[in-house]
């Protein structure tokens, strides 16, 4: 018979191990103890989410924040669904919402506080304690403040997790916070246009546009269905199902265009020409709502005069559209007045000059149709009252006096109200003007992908004395940070009361499905403890749970009370106004068809068409958009979502592809107007895009190899954006002012000009540099090499 014996070990080993156990280590590893046999858990498989504990919460896979139910069994999150009591999404969540589980359990999430032990950008880290990490940050914040003054500290923040730490930066006296790319690289121009015209931000994080009750809708560039927010898409579809007409203006045959009654494939950069011609047409043909305009609007006579020159004939040439189509579209929209939804859009940093004017034009059209405060038009938010407590008292958050302020004395008259211009902070770091900025805190922002011209950003980071970030997954920001703090993800924390002020108002709270994994900590804990290290008074409440309860108390609620009602309570809505009750929140109480405040700053009171330069010879304009299963650049590494859409493709017009002999799915590289090259990207050959533009979805082509699944998959639009034009109103940076041509098998292919550009539109002037370089045969600069000194040490898998 056989018998089992243990492996042979030498006496020397036995001795060494005996000595080892005396070396201060816990005996037997100290990892186990005798179990409490009382609670027997069945770790075997169970059916679906049967027997799971349900905890309601709020999604954060995108900023739309749908109410959800999390299902937890044996201490593990096994499923996420929409909260059935939610009036906006019901039981529905999107692909990203489902994939929160993958974010929670991703082995690449940041697990411990870490400090850099190699060069910046090398990604060599050691694990450190929270105390050590916070002390290091506090020490550097104090040191930089002492040496260069409080404004040398800057904070790039975005999202729910960034708010508590913002108050710590404010308490240090700096003026450089709230420099959100979400504002200056996204919604800024649209928000300003609506604020000045109709008196409230009809499009911000929330959009107050009544699609379910619209009889006609206009989308300019918005591609609902590809950019997915569950309730938003639901409202769009509800409107269409109820018979709403749809006009889509987009150089690309988007998903929304596929549902349109009229799709206008416009020349990129000429939208305002079309809008102004439409405004003129509406006025000249008496299609406007006379009573509404007379009672509620001011500046009509000026508007009428100003737009008189913009005819459909003129716009047809500028926009490369047929007069009959343009006419049919505006007649279709006018017929539905006042129940017409001129969609305000959100991402509006397109061309720099003229972005505010474009959104002002949408607001003017809404006003001319009387589509404000009525079903199917722009509606008013229903204020939902909840409590609030400052983490740091207001009086301790005084901005330190400064001779020349980066924020208040910016070159842009309307920026200061929203924060310091993002690009100005990068410039100040690089030039030390008007003062040096030497320390950066980053929270929830991929500063490489969201701020145009990452090359300038990289240069800036190298100049800093110190940079730290609070992160969940290591993006490019973590790669360059000196200290990395692991953030609890949204499924592991309390963080505030979520009050929805839209068509179906509600109050809900985010609460943890599970405690944080590893040593991740909730943002409130991090901010409170950093404040302690900095000896800043504040954070009177013990934790974020107490904060949520405090805010709920103001409306006689508590987390417990809310949970007894399914985690959410609905409130009555007040979105519409009768003509007698209609109050416009501008200083004059009227909708401003002409904005005097703009004129006071030598800007156009009424939008004028300013053509965005057309592509130079051989190039096409690079445009970009969203993909339904990804959020910005932050979900590309998610296992499930990566499986659905692992890379982006370059949409290329079929006739151009035929002439350049490029086949569908072939891999090419893009070179932009200043010689920067992209990662390789596959081509989608399609008649669904104009020949003068190419398109890709944003967020791919991550340069952080840390994100193991997303690294190098597809191309990043951001790395092609080296030409930016600043919006003169508030300094937002343009993102559609870059041009590319195609590199295939190392030879450069010029994109033929199939549609002639009218003389009224100037062409973008290539800098001599690029042309010279090409002539001299100088090696092009690859965006993918040279700029990142990452040690590629990962072995072949």
């Amino acid at each position, binding site marked *: *018979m*056989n*018998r*089992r*014996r*243990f*492996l*042979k*070990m030498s*006496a*020397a*080993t*036995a*001795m*060494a*191990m*005996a000595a*080892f156990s005396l*070396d201060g280590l816990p*005996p*037997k*590893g*100290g*990892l*186990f*103890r*005798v*179990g*409490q*046999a009382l609670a027997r*858990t069945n*770790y*075997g498989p169970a059916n679906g989410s049967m027997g799971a504990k349900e905890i309601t919460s709020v999604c954060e896979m995108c900023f739309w924040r749908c109410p959800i139910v999390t299902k937890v069994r044996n201490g593990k999150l096994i499923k996420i669904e929409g909260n059935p009591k939610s009036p906006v999404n019901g039981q529905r969540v999107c692909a990203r919402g489902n994939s929160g589980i993958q974010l929670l*359990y*991703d*082995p*690449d999430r940041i*697990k*411990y506080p*870490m400090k850099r*032990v190699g060069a910046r950008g*090398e*990604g*060599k*880290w*050691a*694990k450190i304690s929270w105390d050590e990490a916070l002390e290091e940050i506090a020490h550097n914040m104090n040191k930089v403040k002492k040496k260069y003054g409080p404004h040398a500290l800057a904070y790039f923040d975005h999202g729910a997790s960034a708010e508590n730490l913002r108050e710590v930066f404010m308490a240090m006296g700096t003026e450089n916070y709230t420099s959100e790319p979400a504002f200056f690289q996204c919604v800024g121009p649209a928000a300003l246009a609506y604020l000045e015209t109709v008196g409230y931000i009809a499009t911000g994080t929330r959009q107050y546009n009544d699609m379910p009750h619209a009889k006609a809708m206009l989308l300019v560039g918005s591609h609902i269905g590809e950019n997915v927010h569950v309730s938003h898409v639901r409202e769009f579809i509800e409107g269409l199902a109820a018979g709403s007409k749809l006009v889509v203006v987009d150089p690309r045959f988007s998903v929304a265009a596929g549902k349109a009654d009229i799709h206008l494939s416009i020349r990129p950069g000429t939208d305002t020409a079309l809008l102004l011609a439409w405004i003129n047409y509406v006025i000249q043909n008496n299609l406007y709502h006379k009573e509404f305009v007379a009672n509620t609007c001011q500046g009509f006579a000026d508007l009428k005069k100003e737009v008189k020159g913009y005819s459909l004939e003129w716009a047809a040439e500028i926009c490369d559209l047929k007069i009959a189509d343009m006419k049919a579209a505006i007649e279709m929209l006018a017929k539905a007045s006042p129940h017409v939804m001129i969609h305000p859009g959100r991402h509006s940093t397109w061309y720099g000059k003229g972005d505010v004017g474009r959104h002002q034009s949408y607001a003017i059209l809404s006003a001319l149709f009387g589509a404000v405060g009525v079903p199917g038009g722009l509606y008013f938010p229903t204020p939902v009252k909840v409590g609030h407590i400052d983490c740091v008292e207001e009086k301790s958050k005084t901005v330190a006096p400064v001779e020349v302020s980066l924020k208040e004395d910016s070159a842009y008259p309307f920026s200061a109200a929203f924060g310091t211009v993002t690009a100005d902070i990068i410039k100040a770091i690089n030039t030390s003007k008007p003062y040096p900025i030497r320390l950066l805190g980053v929270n929830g922002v991929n500063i490489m992908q969201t701020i145009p011209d990452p090359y300038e950003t990289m240069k800036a980071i190298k100049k800093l004395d110190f940079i730290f970030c609070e992160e969940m997954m*290591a993006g490019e920001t973590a790669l360059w940070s000196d200290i990395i703090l692991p953030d609890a993800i949204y499924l592991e924390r309390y963080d505030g009361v979520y009050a929805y002020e839209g068509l179906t108002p509600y109050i809900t709270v985010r609460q943890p499905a599970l405690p944080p*994994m590893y040593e991740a900590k909730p943002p409130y804990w991090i901010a409170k403890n950093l404040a302690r290290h900095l000896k800043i008074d504040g954070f009177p409440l013990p934790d974020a749970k107490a904060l949520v309860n405090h805010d709920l108390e103001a409306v006689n609620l508590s987390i417990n009370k809310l949970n007894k009602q399914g985690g959410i309570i609905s409130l009555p809505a007040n979105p519409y106004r009768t003509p007698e009750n209609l109050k416009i929140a501008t200083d004059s109480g009227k909708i401003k068809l002409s904005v005097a405040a703009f004129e006071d700053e030598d800007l156009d009171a009424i939008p004028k068409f300013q053509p965005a330069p057309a592509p130079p010879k051989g190039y096409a304009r690079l445009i970009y958009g969203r993909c339904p299963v990804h959020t910005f650049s932050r979900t590309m590494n998610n296992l499930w979502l990566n499986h659905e859409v692992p890379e982006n493709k370059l949409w290329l017009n079929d006739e151009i592809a035929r002439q350049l002999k490029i086949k569908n799915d072939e891999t090419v590289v893009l070179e932009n107007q200043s010689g920067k090259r992209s990662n390789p990207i596959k081509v989608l050959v399609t008649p669904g895009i104009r020949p003068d533009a190419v398109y890709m979805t944003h967020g791919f082509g991550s340069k*952080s*190899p*840390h994100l*193991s699944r997303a*690294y190098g998959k597809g191309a990043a639009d951001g790395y092609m954006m080296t030409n930016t034009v600043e919006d003169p109103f508030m300094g937002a940076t343009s993102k559609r002012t870059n041009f590319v041509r195609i590199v295939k098998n190392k030879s450069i292919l010029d994109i033929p000009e199939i549609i002639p550009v009218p003389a009224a539109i100037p062409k973008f002037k290539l800098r001599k540099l690029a042309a010279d370089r090409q002539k001299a045969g100088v090696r092009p600069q690859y965006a993918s090499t040279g700029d990142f000194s*990452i*040690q590629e*040490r*990962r*072995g072949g*898998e």
Partner: protein
Amino acid sequence: MNDGSFIYLYLFNQILATRYIMPNQHPFFFLSAAFTYPEQANIHPFFEILASLSADLSIEFNHQAADSTSLTDLQAEYVRLFINSPAGVPAPPYASIYIDNRGILLQQGHDEAMSFYQAAGLETIESSECEDHIAFELAFIGHLIEDNRLDLLNKFINEHVLKWYPAFSQRLQSARPCHFYQVLGQITGLCLQHILIEEKADE
């Protein structure tokens, strides 16, 4: 080595009587400790035991590489291999990642480990780490040996650990780890494979 210690070693060897591993001298608690984040200022004993184990198992050991490794080197390497790395964590040390090819934490592999711990009447201490971390599983083997739970040990190794350790080890070795983790991975693999050697009975 002076005479005194030689005699001591000789006696020690005799006392052991057999050179088969005895319950209180098996290497699994050591292997478990070696797979946790290195924090002891003195890392020398770790290398010493690794060297000795290497000799026992006929694995090449590079003393020079060991001598030139600092604690910071070892920490940075541990973070790169097992926690976070710019090249993606090359070898996440969790059963859940490999079993059933799930690729994420706290899935079936974790359930399996927890069931075994429960069957042995043990539970893990409060820890920031997942319970299917290699360090937990190796320490658990240590306890099973000490308690002489051979059947459970056999089952745990064959039906759980060996379902994932080879895949983990392969990813670890292809990440070109520093000498310490390279040897640690090899030794652990051999110990797991040969802990229970079937031999003809003496009688």
